[in-house]
C-alpha cells in the first residue's frame, strides 16, 4: 500500500495539521491579548503625551519643557517614563535614556533603557516616539514596555518549541488513531479477501461496542452470509443436476453398449458407435463443468502439500514432447530445478497439460512452443509461449469463461472448457494467469506467489 494513498496516513496528517493549527490559533490569540493590545495601549499613551509635550513646548518654551520632562521622569508610574531632548545641532538638553539612533527616525523606535537604582542595573526596553518639533528640536518620548517585551520574547522563543511538541503529539495521536482505524479496516478487507479466495465462511470481526465500524461489520457480515447461502444453493443445485443427469447418462450409455454388444449391420454398428461417442462427449463436458465448479467452490482446504513443481512441469513437458514432434513443432523447455509450490499436483499437472495441449493444437506445423519456469523475486513463474495465431486482446478476458470459443477457432475440437479449468486451478492456488501477446502467438504467464494455496 502506498503511504500517501493510505487513508489512515492521510487521516493522521490531517490530525497533525488540525492539532497544530489549533495550537497556533490559541498562541495567536494569547499574543494578541498579552502583547499586541498592551503595546497598542502604550503607543497611544506615548502618542498622546508627545502631542501634549510638543504643545507645551510651543506655549512655554524650552526651559519649561525640560522641567516638565524631568518632573515626568521622576513621577512614579506603572510604565516608567523616558525622554530625550536634543537641539538641531546635536546638543543633548535633557535625557534619561541612551543609545538613540543618530539620524532622527521620525517614528517609533525601541531603545534599550538601562535603569540604575540602589547600585543595581536593570535592562529595560523602552518604546519611544522620535518626534521633531517645528523648530527642528528633536523630542523623544517613551515608556517602559519591558513586561510586554519579555512576554513577546518568551512567546517567540517558545513558539518553536510549542510547535515542535504539538506536531510530535499530533503525530503520536494520529498514529494511534490511524492504527486503530487501520486495524478495523484491515479486518474488513481480510474478511473480504478470504471470501474472494473461496473461503465463504470469512466474516468481519465485530467487537460488540456498537460503534460505526461494528455496524459496518454487521452489515457486511449479513451480505457475506447471503452470498454464502446463494453460492451454497447454486452448488447444491449443480450437485443435484450432476447427480440427476449423470445417472440417466450412465444408463443411456449402458443401453447403447448393450445394443452394440450384439452382432449388427455395419450401418447400425457405426451409428451406435457414434451415439456412444456422443454420450462420452456429454459425460466428459459434464465432468469438466463439475470439476471446474468443485475447484472454484470447494471451501474446505485440501491437504496442502509442498510440490516439486519442476518435476511436475518436466512430466507434463515429457508427456507433450511426442505430440509436438508428431506435428513438427519445435518444443523447448527451460525449467529451473528445485521450484516448489504448495497445492494439488493433479490439478496443476492437468492445467499445464491443458495449456500445452492448446499451444500445440493452435501452433501450425513448423512453429515452436516453449515452456519456461523460474523464480523471479518472490514469485515462481511459469511461461508457455507458442507461435500460433494468439488470442486477440479484446478476447483475452473472455476465453476463461465456460464454453467461450474464439470465433476463428470454432472448427477446432474441444468444448471451450480448457482455459476455464486452468483459470479455476490458478485461482484455487492463489496464483495469477496472464494471457499476453508473444507476437505472433500466445504467451501465458502463470505466477505463484510464495507458496501456492
Amino acid at each position: 500500500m502506498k503511504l500517501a494513498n493510505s487513508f489512515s496516513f492521510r487521516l493522521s496528517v490531517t490530525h497533525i495539521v488540525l492539532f497544530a493549527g489549533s495550537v497556533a490559533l490559541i498562541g495567536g490569540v494569547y499574543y494578541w491579548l498579552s502583547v499586541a493590545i498592551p503595546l497598542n495601549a502604550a503607543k497611544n499613551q506615548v502618542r498622546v503625551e508627545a502631542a501634549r509635550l510638543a504643545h507645551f513646548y510651543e506655549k512655554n518654551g524650552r526651559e519649561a519643557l525640560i522641567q516638565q520632562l524631568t518632573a515626568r521622569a521622576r513621577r512614579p508610574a506603572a510604565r516608567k517614563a523616558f525622554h530625550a531632548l536634543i537641539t538641531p545641532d546635536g546638543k543633548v538638553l535633557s535625557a534619561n535614556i541612551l543609545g538613540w539612533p543618530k539620524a532622527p527616525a521620525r517614528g517609533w523606535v525601541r531603545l534599550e533603557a538601562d535603569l540604575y537604582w540602589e547600585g543595581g542595573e536593570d535592562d529595560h526596553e523602552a518604546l519611544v516616539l522620535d518626534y521633531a518639533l517645528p523648530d527642528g528640536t528633536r523630542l523623544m518620548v517613551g515608556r517602559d514596555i519591558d513586561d510586554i517585551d519579555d512576554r513577546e520574547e518568551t512567546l517567540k522563543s517558545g513558539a518553536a518549541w510549542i510547535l515542535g511538541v504539538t506536531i510530535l503529539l499530533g503525530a503520536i495521536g494520529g498514529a494511534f488513531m490511524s492504527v486503530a482505524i487501520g486495524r478495523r479496516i484491515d479486518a474488513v478487507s481480510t474478511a473480504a479477501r478470504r471470501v474472494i479466495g473461496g473461503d465463504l465462511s470469512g466474516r468481519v470481526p465485530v467487537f460488540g461496542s456498537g460503534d460505526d465500524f461494528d455496524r459496518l461489520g454487521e452489515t457486511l457480515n449479513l451480505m457475506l452470509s447471503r452470498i454464502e447461502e446463494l453460492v451454497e444453493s447454486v452448488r447444491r443445485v449443480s450437485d443435484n443436476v450432476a447427480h440427476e443427469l449423470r445417472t440417466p447418462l450412465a444408463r443411456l450409455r449402458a443401453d447403447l453398449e448393450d445394443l452394440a454388444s450384439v452382432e449388427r449391420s455395419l450401418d447400425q454398428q457405426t451409428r451406435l458407435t457414434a451415439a456412444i461417442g456422443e454420450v462420452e462427449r456429454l459425460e466428459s463436458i459434464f465432468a469438466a463443468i463439475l470439476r471446474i465448479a468443485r475447484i472454484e467452490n470447494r471451501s474446505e482446504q485440501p491437504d496442502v502439500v509442498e510440490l516439486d513443481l519442476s518435476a511436475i512441469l518436466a512430466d507434463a513437458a515429457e508427456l507433450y514432447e511426442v505430440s509436438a514432434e508428431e506435428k513438427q513443432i519445435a518444443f523447448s523447455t527451460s525449467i529451473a530445478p528445485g521450484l516448489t509450490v504448495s497445492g494439488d499436483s493433479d490439478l496443476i499437472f492437468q492445467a499445464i497439460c491443458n495449456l500445452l495441449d492448446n499451444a500445440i493444437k493452435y501452433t501450425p506445423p513448423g512453429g515452436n512452443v516453449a515452456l519456461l519456469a523460474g523464480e523471479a523475486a518472490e514469485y515462481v513463474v511459469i511461461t508457455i509461449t507458442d507461435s500460433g495465431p494468439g488470442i486477440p486482446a479484446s478476447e483475452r478476458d473472455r476465453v476463461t469463461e465456460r464454453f467461450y470459443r474464439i470465433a476463428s477457432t470454432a472448427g477446432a475440437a474441444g468444448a471451450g472448457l480448457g482455459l476455464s479449468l486452468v483459470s479455476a486451478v490458478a485461482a484455487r492456488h492463489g496464483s495469477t494467469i496472464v494471457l499476453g501477446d508473444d507476437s505472433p502467438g500466445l504467451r501465458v504467464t502463470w505466477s505463484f506467489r510464495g507458496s501456492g494455496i
Partner: protein
Amino acid sequence: MHILLIEDDERVAGHISAGLQEVGHLVDRSADGRDGLFKAAGEQYDVIILDRMLPFVDGLKLLQIIRATGDVTPVLILSALGDVDERVKGLRAGGDDYLAKPFALSELLARVDVLARRQPVTREQVRLVVGDLEIDLLGRVVKRAGRRIDMTSREFRILEYLARNAGRAVTRSMLLENVWDYHFDPQTNIIDQHVSRLRQKLDRDFAQPLLHTVRGTGYVLRADP
C-alpha cells in the same frame, strides 16, 4: 471370478453385473451397506466393487470395517464424487482403486481384471517375459527375440506396466495413473501417441505384433494373436 457388487442404484447395478457376467464372472449383488457388509464378511470374494454412497452403512465406513477384520480382498470404489480429495479419502480408507461415475463399462472391466490378478508384491520380480519379449527390470534392458530394443525411461515404464498385466486390457487412464502417477481423465489422445511410439519400437521389425489395441478400452500386451 467371484465378485461382490455393492451398489444401490438398481439399473447401474444391473448394467455392471450384466457386463461382468458376460465376460464370465460370478456376481453377488447387494443394494445397501448393511447387506453388503454381511455378504463381504460371510464369503471370500476375488474383488469387491463398492459404491461410495449407500443406504444404512456408508461405503467408506463399510470398507474400514472390512479392512479392520484383516480382510485384504481388492476393493474398487465407485463414486459420483470425482475429486482428487475424494479419491485420496477412498484410497486411504483401504480402497485399491477408485473409479469416478460415470464410467465406461470397459474401463470397469479392465480395472476389475487387473485388481483381481494383481501380483502379490512380496516377491520382487526382476524379469518379465511375454512371448519372445524379455524385460530385465534391474538392468532396465528390453530384448525381443534376443535383440536389444532401446527406449526412453517413460516407454520402459509403459511397457513394464503392460507386461505386468500381460494378457489383460489396460485403459488410458490406468496408464496415466500408474505410469505418470497423475489422476485425471486426459480427454485427448496424448496417451495414444506415447503408446504408438512404443509400439513402433516393439513391433516394427517383427511379423508377430505384441502390443494390441482393444477397441473401446485401451491396450493389451499379448504373445498370441
